């Protein structure tokens, strides 16, 4: 789960990582007021869960409160990478002497946290990694040992940080480590970490990505989820513990298992169609669960055909069939449906569906072809 910049910086601030003074605004009038309080010169920053905000014109310097108001009106009317801007962060403008990069990410390959720093802050770190990889310094942290100061000194040396800044850098790195551990993050990033003209170190921007699997330990952080960044059906799906992701196509998919759900989407594309969604109904799905999943799929107006692909292990074909019948009897929408059941109780399931108006397929590809034909007819 991604957090907004302002949410990330609020967490940083709680851990005493210095951040610029600033507040959040959802209208131009408030932005003007905040700018006034901060002394006039401020930066207006669009709060959307997407990278490249600066390039898209979502981060602008305002020299006066009036300008802050005008820029906020403009930015609040923008969409960045398809996401509408509902809030801006109004931060004091600081005079920057140097910008550096500091982050901790969970490294899958090494199964360990990786702390990274670069003397090239304030730009896309992937670009730096691509163009001048020698400018990025990396240290893996043994999760049984935690972050030790020597590791941060290694990084400081790696990025040629002048000695006078080591103390602040080590302190900030250790606090960032604390944030990473105590919020169960998979990424904590300060980009840029700036050294101001008056020699202070400040986290000018912040990014935190939380591990969804650990949210049960952090109910307060779970509440920070931005529901605007996802479709209502996705929010609804989460309530039922279903994995649902909306896509652009017209063939709705209901599948058990994440890998099989992806494979089903791929087969639809292979057959010349486009999947409308990813949906994993989970293991041992009950009829109710299947019915809920079907209703979610049907709530997408682009859907013209539904493809059900179930390989029964713990999930039973007859239970799935009952769910389909239940959803069909509850809803008025009459869309064509292709059903492919294999594995546990598939025969019983197909028998139940014999009277319903569904097309049956034996194999995955046959199901894909039938769905694509129906979608284009």
């Amino acid at each position, binding site marked *: 789960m991604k957090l907004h910049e302002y949410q990330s910086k609020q967490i940083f601030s709680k851990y005493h990582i210095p951040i610029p003074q600033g507040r959040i605004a959802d209208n131009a009038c408030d932005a003007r007021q905040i700018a006034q309080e901060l002394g006039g010169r401020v930066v207006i920053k669009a709060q959307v869960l997407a990278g490249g905000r600066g390039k898209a014109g979502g981060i602008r310097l305002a020299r006066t409160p009036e300008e802050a108001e005008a820029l906020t009106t403009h930015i609040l009317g923008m969409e960045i990478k398809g996401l509408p801007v509902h809030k801006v962060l109004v931060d004091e403008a600081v005079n920057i002497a140097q910008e550096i990069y500091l982050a901790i990410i*969970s490294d*899958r*390959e090494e*199964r*360990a*946290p990786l702390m990274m720093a670069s003397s090239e802050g304030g730009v896309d770190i*992937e670009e730096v990694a691509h163009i001048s990889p020698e400018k990025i310094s990396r240290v893996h942290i*043994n*999760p*049984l040992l935690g972050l030790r100061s020597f590791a941060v000194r290694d990084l400081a040396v790696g990025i040629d940080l002048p000695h006078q800044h080591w103390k602040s850098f080590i302190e900030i790195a250790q606090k960032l480590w604390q944030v990473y*551990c105590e919020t*169960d993050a*998979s990424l904590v990033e300060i980009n840029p970490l700036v050294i101001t003209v008056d020699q202070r170190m400040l986290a000018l921007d912040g990014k935190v990505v939380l*591990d*969804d*699997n*650990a949210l*049960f*330990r952090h109910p307060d952080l779970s509440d920070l989820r931005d529901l605007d960044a996802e479709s209502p059906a996705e929010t609804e799906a989460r309530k039922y513990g279903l*994995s649902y*992701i909306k*896509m652009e196509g017209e063939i709705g998919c209901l*599948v*058990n*298992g*994440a*890998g*099989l*759900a*992806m*494979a089903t*989407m*791929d*087969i*639809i*594309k*292979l057959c010349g169609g486009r*999947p409308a969604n*990813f949906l*994993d109904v989970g*293991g041992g799905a009950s009829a109710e669960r299947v019915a809920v999943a079907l209703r979610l799929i049907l709530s997408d107006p682009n859907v013209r055909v539904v493809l059900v692909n179930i*390989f029964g*292990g*713990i999930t039973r074909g007859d239970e799935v069939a009952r769910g389909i019948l239940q959803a069909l009897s509850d809803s008025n929408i009459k869309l064509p449906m292709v059903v492919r059941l*294999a*594995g*546990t109780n598939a025969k019983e399931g197909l028998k139940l569906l014999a009277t319903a108006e569904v097309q049956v397929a034996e*194999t*995955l*590809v046959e199901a894909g072809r039938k769905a694509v034909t129906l979608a284009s007819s």
Partner: protein
Amino acid sequence: MSILANKSTRLLVQGITGREGLFHTVQMVRDGTNVVAGVTPGRGGEWVLDGKIPVFDTVRLAVEATGANASVIFVPARYAPDAIFEAADAGICLIVCITEGIPNQDMMQVYHYLAQKKVRLIGPNSPGILSPGEIKIGIIPSDIAILGNTGVVSRSGTLTYEILYALKRAGMGVSTCVGIGGDPIIGTDFLDVLSMFEADAHTDRVVLIGEVGGTDEERAASYIAKEMTKPVVAFVAGLTAPPGRRMGHAGAIIEGGAGLAQSKIEALENAGVHVVRNPEEIPLFLSS
């Protein structure tokens, strides 16, 4: 006949009195697995399966009493890391973790602790291990596979069942099927299992089932190119997966341009692996 475990493996079930744990213990015993004990803290002294399997309070007690040397974990996510540590600490040398949803930072600690102890972990978020006719540890339905000489290794559950079933229909058998798990931090990766299959006298060819996220398939490809003599056929799920979204499995996410299905397919093809676009075609390419 099999890698990782065999008929002489003495299996312990952690979380044996839970709904899932008990259900799958029945299945595993039916499939010939030697389940010697169960552990549920607070339920020590009880018996399950009509008095056939004793339940202990701790793994240490279970190991002392029964000589268990492998464990399968059906414990809920918030208690599972503790269960894995406990098994490793009590001297269990193979741990298979079925549990889905364990926090990543817990798993990083688990991984490094187990590496010190030289304990093998399969999973988490794994369907387990199946060697038809020999042993089953986990939840893979045994009736969809027959004994043979194909090794199967996968990050997925039901997609693997689909492929096992396709192999069976084509009359092709399996030496061992290993589900390495759909999480980002897992104990055993493709490379580990491929090297076991390469060394296994009863495996002549391998099916690898990958998916988006991480770089495990790419590392497998480089191992296959350099070290592997046995033929490999692969399928990689998620060509249509959008970037930045978690595709059900916690580990199935394309991040910062890494983890794309296309780059995995290219890496595997460059290593001489035949990568099918339709998983049902795997038996076709195994026989050719």
